Protein backbone atom coordinates (compact mmCIF):
# COMPACT_ATOMS: atom_id res chain seq x y z
CA UNK A 1 0.00 0.00 0.00
CA UNK A 2 1.49 3.29 -1.07
CA UNK A 3 1.70 5.72 1.88
CA UNK A 4 -0.42 8.84 1.53
CA UNK A 5 1.86 11.80 0.75
CA UNK A 6 0.12 14.52 2.77
CA UNK A 7 -2.60 13.65 5.29
CA UNK A 8 -5.76 15.72 4.85
CA UNK A 9 -7.78 15.72 8.11
CA UNK A 10 -11.08 15.83 6.24
CA UNK A 11 -11.65 14.03 2.95
CA UNK A 12 -11.84 16.44 0.01
CA UNK A 13 -15.37 17.52 -0.94
CA UNK A 14 -17.00 15.70 1.97
CA UNK A 15 -20.49 17.13 1.82
CA UNK A 16 -21.82 19.07 4.77
CA UNK A 17 -25.46 20.15 5.05
CA UNK A 18 -25.95 23.37 6.96
CA UNK A 19 -28.60 23.11 9.68
CA UNK A 20 -31.62 25.16 8.63
CA UNK A 21 -32.72 28.12 10.76
CA UNK A 22 -36.09 26.36 11.00
CA UNK A 23 -34.70 23.07 12.31
CA UNK A 24 -37.03 23.36 15.28
CA UNK A 25 -40.08 23.17 13.05
CA UNK A 26 -39.06 19.87 11.50
CA UNK A 27 -40.38 17.66 14.30
CA UNK A 28 -42.83 17.90 17.18
CA UNK A 29 -40.24 17.04 19.90
CA UNK A 30 -38.00 19.85 18.64
CA UNK A 31 -40.92 22.31 18.58
CA UNK A 32 -41.99 21.29 22.08
CA UNK A 33 -38.42 21.89 23.22
CA UNK A 34 -38.31 25.41 21.75
CA UNK A 35 -41.73 26.23 23.27
CA UNK A 36 -40.41 25.05 26.63
CA UNK A 37 -37.39 27.32 26.28
CA UNK A 38 -39.60 30.18 25.09
CA UNK A 39 -41.64 29.94 28.28
CA UNK A 40 -38.74 31.75 29.96
CA UNK A 41 -39.87 34.94 28.16
CA UNK A 42 -43.20 34.75 29.98
CA UNK A 43 -41.37 34.14 33.25
CA UNK A 44 -39.49 37.39 32.63
CA UNK A 45 -42.79 39.12 31.73
CA UNK A 46 -44.17 38.06 35.12
CA UNK A 47 -41.24 39.75 36.86
CA UNK A 48 -41.82 42.95 34.85
CA UNK A 49 -45.51 42.85 35.78
CA UNK A 50 -44.75 42.29 39.46
CA UNK A 51 -42.23 45.12 39.58
CA UNK A 52 -44.84 47.38 37.97
CA UNK A 53 -47.35 46.23 40.55
CA UNK A 54 -45.01 46.99 43.45
CA UNK A 55 -44.21 50.40 41.99
CA UNK A 56 -47.93 51.24 41.66
CA UNK A 57 -48.62 50.08 45.22
CA UNK A 58 -45.85 52.35 46.49
CA UNK A 59 -47.19 55.36 44.58
CA UNK A 60 -50.55 55.17 46.33
CA UNK A 61 -54.16 53.96 45.97
CA UNK A 62 -54.89 56.06 42.88
CA UNK A 63 -51.85 54.73 41.03
CA UNK A 64 -52.72 51.20 42.04
CA UNK A 65 -56.31 51.61 40.87
CA UNK A 66 -54.93 52.74 37.52
CA UNK A 67 -52.72 49.65 37.44
CA UNK A 68 -55.72 47.41 38.11
CA UNK A 69 -57.65 49.11 35.30
CA UNK A 70 -54.73 48.43 32.98
CA UNK A 71 -54.71 44.79 34.08
CA UNK A 72 -58.37 44.49 33.10
CA UNK A 73 -57.80 45.63 29.51
CA UNK A 74 -58.43 42.81 26.99
CA UNK A 75 -54.86 42.85 25.67
CA UNK A 76 -53.39 42.39 29.15
CA UNK A 77 -55.90 39.68 30.04
CA UNK A 78 -55.07 37.80 26.84
CA UNK A 79 -51.33 38.24 27.43
CA UNK A 80 -51.59 37.05 31.02
CA UNK A 81 -53.76 34.09 30.00
CA UNK A 82 -51.10 33.00 27.49
CA UNK A 83 -48.38 33.70 30.06
CA UNK A 84 -50.19 31.56 32.61
CA UNK A 85 -50.34 28.62 30.20
CA UNK A 86 -46.66 28.95 29.38
CA UNK A 87 -45.67 29.29 33.04
CA UNK A 88 -47.62 26.15 33.92
CA UNK A 89 -45.94 24.42 30.97
CA UNK A 90 -42.59 25.50 32.42
CA UNK A 91 -43.52 24.16 35.86
CA UNK A 92 -44.71 20.78 34.56
CA UNK A 93 -41.71 20.23 32.28
CA UNK A 94 -39.37 21.41 35.06
CA UNK A 95 -40.73 18.96 37.65
CA UNK A 96 -40.66 16.12 35.14
CA UNK A 97 -37.06 16.76 34.08
CA UNK A 98 -35.38 17.91 37.31
CA UNK A 99 -35.07 14.34 38.72
CA UNK A 100 -32.80 13.43 35.81
CA UNK A 101 -30.03 15.59 37.24
CA UNK A 102 -30.09 13.79 40.56
CA UNK A 103 -29.18 10.13 40.57
CA UNK A 104 -30.72 9.37 43.95
CA UNK A 105 -29.93 5.92 45.11
CA UNK A 106 -31.98 3.98 47.64
CA UNK A 107 -30.86 0.66 49.05
CA UNK A 108 -28.33 0.20 46.25
CA UNK A 109 -30.75 0.67 43.36
CA UNK A 110 -31.53 3.80 41.37
CA UNK A 111 -34.71 5.39 42.77
CA UNK A 112 -37.61 5.45 40.29
CA UNK A 113 -38.10 8.89 38.75
CA UNK A 114 -41.63 9.12 40.16
CA UNK A 115 -40.27 9.09 43.70
CA UNK A 116 -38.51 12.38 42.99
CA UNK A 117 -41.12 13.90 40.69
CA UNK A 118 -44.10 13.34 42.99
CA UNK A 119 -42.72 15.36 45.95
CA UNK A 120 -42.07 18.22 43.51
CA UNK A 121 -45.73 18.35 42.57
CA UNK A 122 -46.74 18.12 46.22
CA UNK A 123 -44.41 21.03 47.01
CA UNK A 124 -45.92 22.98 44.09
CA UNK A 125 -49.41 22.43 45.45
CA UNK A 126 -48.35 23.33 48.99
CA UNK A 127 -46.53 26.53 47.96
CA UNK A 128 -49.42 27.61 45.73
CA UNK A 129 -51.97 26.99 48.46
CA UNK A 130 -49.86 28.84 51.04
CA UNK A 131 -49.35 31.85 48.77
CA UNK A 132 -53.04 31.99 47.85
CA UNK A 133 -53.97 31.80 51.52
CA UNK A 134 -51.56 34.62 52.37
CA UNK A 135 -52.80 36.89 49.60
CA UNK A 136 -56.49 36.22 50.13
CA UNK A 137 -56.54 35.74 53.86
CA UNK A 138 -55.42 39.15 55.07
Amino acid at each position, binding site marked *: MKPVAGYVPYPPRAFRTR*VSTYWWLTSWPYLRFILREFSSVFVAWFVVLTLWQIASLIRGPAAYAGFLEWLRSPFLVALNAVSFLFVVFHAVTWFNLAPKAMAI*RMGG*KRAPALLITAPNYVAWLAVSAALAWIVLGE
Partner: protein
Amino acid sequence: MADQIALEVTRYHPERDREPGLQTYEVPLRPEWVVLDALNYVKDKVDGSLSFRWSCRMGICGSCGMMVNGEPKLTCAAFLSDYAPGPIRVEPLKHFAVIRDLIVDITDFLHKLSKAKPWLIRKEEKPLAEGEYLQTPEQLDTFKQFSMCINCLLCYAACPVYGMDPLFSGPAAIALAQRYNMDSRDQGSGERLDILSHSDGIWGCTFVGECTKVCPKNVDPAGAIQQYKLTAAKEWVKSLLLPWGAK
Protein backbone atom coordinates in the same frame (compact mmCIF):
# COMPACT_ATOMS: atom_id res chain seq x y z
CA MET B 1 -48.52 -7.81 2.23
CA ALA B 2 -46.97 -6.61 -1.05
CA ASP B 3 -43.80 -8.43 -2.05
CA GLN B 4 -41.71 -5.38 -2.93
CA ILE B 5 -40.89 -2.09 -1.23
CA ALA B 6 -39.09 0.98 -2.58
CA LEU B 7 -35.89 2.19 -0.94
CA GLU B 8 -34.85 5.80 -1.64
CA VAL B 9 -31.14 5.84 -0.88
CA THR B 10 -28.75 8.78 -0.81
CA ARG B 11 -25.99 8.50 -3.42
CA TYR B 12 -23.00 10.82 -3.34
CA HIS B 13 -19.85 10.42 -5.40
CA PRO B 14 -17.42 13.08 -4.17
CA GLU B 15 -15.33 12.88 -7.33
CA ARG B 16 -18.20 13.85 -9.63
CA ASP B 17 -21.31 14.96 -7.66
CA ARG B 18 -21.81 18.53 -6.43
CA GLU B 19 -24.29 17.34 -3.78
CA PRO B 20 -26.00 14.12 -2.66
CA GLY B 21 -29.09 12.85 -4.50
CA LEU B 22 -31.63 10.08 -3.94
CA GLN B 23 -31.75 6.89 -5.98
CA THR B 24 -34.69 4.47 -5.77
CA TYR B 25 -34.31 0.68 -5.60
CA GLU B 26 -37.07 -1.94 -5.39
CA VAL B 27 -36.25 -4.61 -2.83
CA PRO B 28 -38.16 -7.72 -1.70
CA LEU B 29 -40.38 -7.09 1.31
CA ARG B 30 -39.49 -10.14 3.42
CA PRO B 31 -41.13 -10.15 6.87
CA GLU B 32 -37.87 -10.86 8.73
CA TRP B 33 -35.74 -8.38 6.78
CA VAL B 34 -34.31 -5.18 8.21
CA VAL B 35 -33.17 -2.10 6.26
CA LEU B 36 -29.60 -3.42 6.41
CA ASP B 37 -30.69 -6.62 4.66
CA ALA B 38 -32.34 -4.51 1.96
CA LEU B 39 -29.16 -2.43 1.52
CA ASN B 40 -27.06 -5.61 1.23
CA TYR B 41 -29.55 -6.97 -1.30
CA VAL B 42 -29.07 -3.82 -3.37
CA LYS B 43 -25.29 -4.08 -3.13
CA ASP B 44 -25.26 -7.81 -4.01
CA LYS B 45 -27.87 -7.97 -6.75
CA VAL B 46 -28.66 -4.50 -8.06
CA ASP B 47 -25.92 -1.88 -7.67
CA GLY B 48 -22.54 -2.95 -6.32
CA SER B 49 -21.33 0.64 -6.07
CA LEU B 50 -23.59 1.44 -3.09
CA SER B 51 -21.37 2.07 -0.04
CA PHE B 52 -22.36 1.83 3.61
CA ARG B 53 -20.92 0.72 6.95
CA TRP B 54 -22.13 -2.35 8.82
CA SER B 55 -20.66 -5.22 10.81
CA CYS B 56 -22.37 -7.30 13.46
CA ARG B 57 -25.96 -6.87 12.14
CA MET B 58 -27.24 -7.42 15.68
CA GLY B 59 -27.14 -4.02 17.36
CA ILE B 60 -23.86 -4.20 19.27
CA CYS B 61 -21.13 -2.83 17.01
CA GLY B 62 -22.68 0.57 16.35
CA SER B 63 -21.54 0.74 12.70
CA CYS B 64 -24.82 0.83 10.77
CA GLY B 65 -26.38 4.06 12.06
CA MET B 66 -28.29 5.97 9.34
CA MET B 67 -31.35 8.19 8.96
CA VAL B 68 -34.39 6.05 8.14
CA ASN B 69 -37.37 8.25 7.13
CA GLY B 70 -35.69 11.16 8.88
CA GLU B 71 -35.02 9.38 12.18
CA PRO B 72 -31.64 8.13 13.36
CA LYS B 73 -31.79 4.34 13.50
CA LEU B 74 -29.54 1.30 13.50
CA THR B 75 -30.41 -0.17 10.11
CA CYS B 76 -29.90 -3.66 11.54
CA ALA B 77 -32.78 -2.94 13.93
CA ALA B 78 -35.24 -1.24 11.55
CA PHE B 79 -37.66 -3.81 10.12
CA LEU B 80 -38.89 -3.25 6.56
CA SER B 81 -42.38 -4.35 7.55
CA ASP B 82 -42.61 -1.47 10.03
CA TYR B 83 -42.29 0.97 7.14
CA ALA B 84 -44.57 -0.86 4.65
CA PRO B 85 -45.90 0.11 2.15
CA GLY B 86 -42.96 2.52 1.96
CA PRO B 87 -41.06 4.07 0.27
CA ILE B 88 -38.27 4.09 2.86
CA ARG B 89 -35.82 6.97 2.71
CA VAL B 90 -32.31 5.96 3.81
CA GLU B 91 -29.88 8.84 4.29
CA PRO B 92 -26.49 9.22 5.96
CA LEU B 93 -26.39 10.14 9.64
CA LYS B 94 -27.28 13.82 10.18
CA HIS B 95 -24.80 16.42 11.47
CA PHE B 96 -21.78 14.66 10.02
CA ALA B 97 -19.96 15.34 6.75
CA VAL B 98 -20.78 12.76 4.07
CA ILE B 99 -17.73 11.07 2.62
CA ARG B 100 -19.66 8.95 0.13
CA ASP B 101 -23.21 7.58 -0.20
CA LEU B 102 -24.21 6.57 3.34
CA ILE B 103 -20.76 6.85 4.91
CA VAL B 104 -20.06 9.81 7.23
CA ASP B 105 -16.88 11.27 8.65
CA ILE B 106 -16.81 10.64 12.38
CA THR B 107 -13.34 12.08 13.01
CA ASP B 108 -14.84 14.96 15.00
CA PHE B 109 -16.58 12.56 17.36
CA LEU B 110 -13.42 10.47 17.86
CA HIS B 111 -11.51 13.62 18.70
CA LYS B 112 -14.13 14.73 21.23
CA LEU B 113 -14.33 11.25 22.71
CA SER B 114 -10.59 11.17 23.38
CA LYS B 115 -10.88 14.62 24.99
CA ALA B 116 -13.28 13.09 27.50
CA LYS B 117 -10.55 10.59 28.52
CA PRO B 118 -12.74 7.46 28.49
CA TRP B 119 -10.34 5.25 30.45
CA LEU B 120 -9.57 4.62 34.10
CA ILE B 121 -7.27 7.33 35.46
CA ARG B 122 -5.38 6.62 38.66
CA LYS B 123 -3.33 9.11 40.65
CA GLU B 124 -1.46 6.19 42.21
CA GLU B 125 -1.57 2.62 40.96
CA LYS B 126 -2.04 -0.13 43.52
CA PRO B 127 1.04 -2.39 43.72
CA LEU B 128 0.44 -5.74 42.00
CA ALA B 129 0.89 -7.63 45.26
CA GLU B 130 -2.29 -5.99 46.63
CA GLY B 131 -4.40 -7.63 43.94
CA GLU B 132 -7.30 -6.33 41.85
CA TYR B 133 -9.43 -3.24 42.37
CA LEU B 134 -12.58 -4.66 43.97
CA GLN B 135 -16.02 -3.31 43.18
CA THR B 136 -19.39 -4.19 44.69
CA PRO B 137 -22.49 -4.73 42.51
CA GLU B 138 -23.91 -1.46 43.89
CA GLN B 139 -20.79 0.43 42.77
CA LEU B 140 -21.08 -1.15 39.33
CA ASP B 141 -24.72 -0.15 39.17
CA THR B 142 -23.92 3.55 39.48
CA PHE B 143 -22.29 3.68 36.06
CA LYS B 144 -23.33 0.48 34.28
CA GLN B 145 -26.06 2.15 32.25
CA PHE B 146 -23.59 4.66 30.77
CA SER B 147 -21.14 1.88 29.92
CA MET B 148 -23.65 0.35 27.50
CA CYS B 149 -22.79 2.94 24.83
CA ILE B 150 -21.81 1.39 21.49
CA ASN B 151 -20.67 4.68 19.93
CA CYS B 152 -23.30 4.38 17.21
CA LEU B 153 -23.68 8.20 17.04
CA LEU B 154 -27.49 8.14 16.72
CA CYS B 155 -27.54 10.60 19.62
CA TYR B 156 -25.30 13.01 17.71
CA ALA B 157 -27.68 12.85 14.74
CA ALA B 158 -30.59 13.66 17.05
CA CYS B 159 -28.89 16.48 18.96
CA PRO B 160 -29.69 19.89 17.45
CA VAL B 161 -26.98 21.58 19.51
CA TYR B 162 -24.30 19.31 18.06
CA GLY B 163 -25.63 20.08 14.60
CA MET B 164 -25.15 23.81 15.10
CA ASP B 165 -22.25 24.17 17.53
CA PRO B 166 -19.00 22.70 16.22
CA LEU B 167 -17.43 22.91 19.68
CA PHE B 168 -20.08 21.00 21.66
CA SER B 169 -18.77 17.66 22.93
CA GLY B 170 -21.99 15.80 22.27
CA PRO B 171 -24.06 13.24 24.20
CA ALA B 172 -21.99 10.05 23.91
CA ALA B 173 -18.65 11.68 24.79
CA ILE B 174 -20.08 13.29 27.92
CA ALA B 175 -22.00 10.16 28.92
CA LEU B 176 -18.79 8.14 28.65
CA ALA B 177 -16.89 10.74 30.67
CA GLN B 178 -19.57 10.39 33.33
CA ARG B 179 -19.28 6.58 33.10
CA TYR B 180 -15.67 6.84 34.18
CA ASN B 181 -16.30 9.61 36.69
CA MET B 182 -18.81 7.37 38.48
CA ASP B 183 -16.53 4.32 38.40
CA SER B 184 -15.23 3.70 41.91
CA ARG B 185 -11.86 2.65 40.52
CA ASP B 186 -11.34 5.97 38.72
CA GLN B 187 -9.57 9.02 40.14
CA GLY B 188 -9.70 11.23 37.06
CA SER B 189 -12.88 13.29 37.42
CA GLY B 190 -10.87 16.43 38.14
CA GLU B 191 -8.88 16.04 34.93
CA ARG B 192 -12.03 15.48 32.89
CA LEU B 193 -13.77 18.43 34.49
CA ASP B 194 -10.91 20.75 33.53
CA ILE B 195 -11.43 19.78 29.91
CA LEU B 196 -15.21 19.45 29.75
CA SER B 197 -16.48 22.18 32.07
CA HIS B 198 -16.42 24.83 29.41
CA SER B 199 -19.12 26.39 27.29
CA ASP B 200 -17.77 24.28 24.47
CA GLY B 201 -17.78 21.12 26.59
CA ILE B 202 -20.92 20.20 28.48
CA TRP B 203 -22.56 23.58 28.98
CA GLY B 204 -23.84 23.84 25.41
CA CYS B 205 -26.38 21.16 26.27
CA THR B 206 -29.88 22.57 26.74
CA PHE B 207 -31.50 19.24 27.67
CA VAL B 208 -33.50 18.78 24.50
CA GLY B 209 -33.62 15.09 25.41
CA GLU B 210 -33.74 13.66 21.88
CA CYS B 211 -30.44 11.85 22.40
CA THR B 212 -31.98 9.65 25.08
CA LYS B 213 -35.04 8.98 22.89
CA VAL B 214 -33.03 7.60 19.97
CA CYS B 215 -30.41 5.65 21.94
CA PRO B 216 -30.72 1.95 21.04
CA LYS B 217 -28.99 0.79 24.23
CA ASN B 218 -30.91 2.91 26.79
CA VAL B 219 -27.80 4.74 27.90
CA ASP B 220 -29.78 7.91 28.72
CA PRO B 221 -27.04 10.38 27.75
CA ALA B 222 -29.30 13.34 28.59
CA GLY B 223 -29.51 12.12 32.18
CA ALA B 224 -25.76 11.60 32.28
CA ILE B 225 -25.14 15.16 31.08
CA GLN B 226 -27.51 16.70 33.64
CA GLN B 227 -25.83 14.68 36.39
CA TYR B 228 -22.49 15.88 35.12
CA LYS B 229 -23.69 19.52 35.16
CA LEU B 230 -24.72 19.11 38.79
CA THR B 231 -21.34 17.54 39.63
CA ALA B 232 -19.49 20.34 37.83
CA ALA B 233 -21.57 22.94 39.68
CA LYS B 234 -20.84 21.31 43.04
CA GLU B 235 -17.13 21.21 42.22
CA TRP B 236 -17.26 24.88 41.23
CA VAL B 237 -18.84 25.83 44.56
CA LYS B 238 -16.28 23.71 46.40
CA SER B 239 -13.39 25.34 44.54
CA LEU B 240 -14.83 28.73 45.49
CA LEU B 241 -15.11 27.88 49.17
CA LEU B 242 -12.01 25.72 49.47
CA PRO B 243 -9.57 26.97 46.83
CA TRP B 244 -6.72 24.79 48.07
CA GLY B 245 -8.46 21.46 47.71
CA ALA B 246 -8.14 20.85 43.96
CA LYS B 247 -9.62 17.46 43.02
